């Protein structure tokens, strides 16, 4: 059985700020990032769907110690965002002074854009990742 939404397709869409997920025809729940099966009911009966890219911050951390060759990125803020369609995704919070990130951001609305991680010697090429901007 074919993987319903391969990384390559998810990634090229994300590079155009289009967030793709999977809608379950059995339970109607949304899975994102993609999986082989519905993350709610494990059904294989999935269709690709475009998500709105807005949601709310659920938690955050400011990273000060980076992995090899990413030292020039620190400090940066990572957030887990609950999308309006239900699933949570991970991304970077942009347009904020990392020193000012605080628990007060939790529950605030964000909209998604993207930034491309060029990859390193251990990655199989580049990968777009969501970047979020505060709406309120």
């Amino acid at each position, binding site marked *: 059985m074919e993987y319903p939404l391969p*990384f390559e397709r998810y*990634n090229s869409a994300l590079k155009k700020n289009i967030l793709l997920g999977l809608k379950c025809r059995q339970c109607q729940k949304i899975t994102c*990032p993609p*999986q082989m099966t519905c*993350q709610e009911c494990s059904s294989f009966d999935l269709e690709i769907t475009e998500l709105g890219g807005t949601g709310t911050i*659920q*938690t*955050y*951390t*400011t*990273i*000060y*110690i*980076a*992995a*090899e*060759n*990413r*030292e020039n*990125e620190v400090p*940066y803020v*990572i957030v*887990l965002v*609950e999308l309006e369609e239900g*699933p*949570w*995704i*991970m*991304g*970077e919070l942009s347009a904020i002074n990392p020193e000012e*990130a605080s*628990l007060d951001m*939790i529950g605030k609305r964000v909209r998604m854009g993207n930034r491309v*991680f060029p990859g*390193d010697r*251990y*990655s*199989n090429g580049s*990968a*777009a*990742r*969501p970047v979020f901007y505060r709406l309120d």
Partner: protein
Amino acid sequence: MRKVAIIGTGHTDFGFNSPKTGLELFCEAATEAMVEANVQPKDIQALYCGNGLSDFSEGQIMIQSYIADSLGCRHIPATRFEAACSSATVAIRDAYMWVASGFYDIVLVGGTEKATAMGTALATRTFAMGTDARYEFPAGLTFPGFFGLLANLYAKKYNIPFERLRNQMSLVSVQSHSYGVKNPHAQFKKEITVDQVEKAFMVASPLTLLDCCPFSDGAAALVIASEEKARALCDTPIYIAGVGQASSGMLSCQYKDIPRLKAREISVKQAYDMAGVGPQDIDVCELHDCFSIASIIAAEGLGFAEFGKGGQLWEKEETRIGGKIPINISGGLKSKGHPIGATGASQTVEIVKQLRGDLVGQERQVEGARVGLVDTLGGDGILCNLILKKERE
């Protein structure tokens, strides 16, 4: 299934910049365990080795077969277990299964790691390989970041004022160091204060350097035997009474559960049910304290405190010797060290020694301990638990 016992233990010093190779470290721990168990290389029927990163740290894959040969255990099946930080615990669970099934009578199991040779940047990169390579690492996730996300979520979800959680996390690290001082194998033998934890530099907010375990080198090993062999070879066998293992996916996909880690609750229930005990029966516990908040989350998942109240165990000193549930009397990963492939074997060695009453001389014996629990977390979602008992049922 047959009863299975641990009849020998070995443990190297844990520390920075070991001059020895991962293979050499394993062989030293293994021979110590074999001497204690009174077995020879020819008696070992299989070797199971936990190891996370020898590919990256030493350019060595299939380290297990070179270990078996070097030990003189010629031509036996040797298998490497990679489950990030829980590699050795998963190896012990499998060793248990093979002996319990009757397929083998005596198995050598342990773990080894050399992480410090990689340096902080590469070590941080390789540890981050335990996150999802396509949907998490590109966003910049590191392992301290994983627990930084959980710490902030924890404060928010349970409505704990941040200053109180900050203090609870500091108390976890302070306690670990207070016992690490007494453990001759520990990487850090130095007391720290709450103030030092809070003023140390930030690694991934809200976690400072002293909320985080170190990179470490080291090895630990055990000899596992059927009850019949154990009785013939050993006066103080420690029985493996329950085992559990479970896994889960990337952090964002665990959204319905976090900061709880559902895999732990499933794994430890398997172990409790199999051993016929509950959290109230555990006399001593080694749990996975890779970060201070991880200890609090683990204590709750294992059933020692209500969700959102784990930190109170440390506030009330219930986790010290003499308290309700002594936790990480070894110094834990924080102070004893965290050579990831060896960690679960080290935790298990510690519990065996506690149940045998071996630690009186080190002034960290939990008096009268009969039932002990091992808890190891690998990456974002491999949980393995073992329950050990002093006496056979």
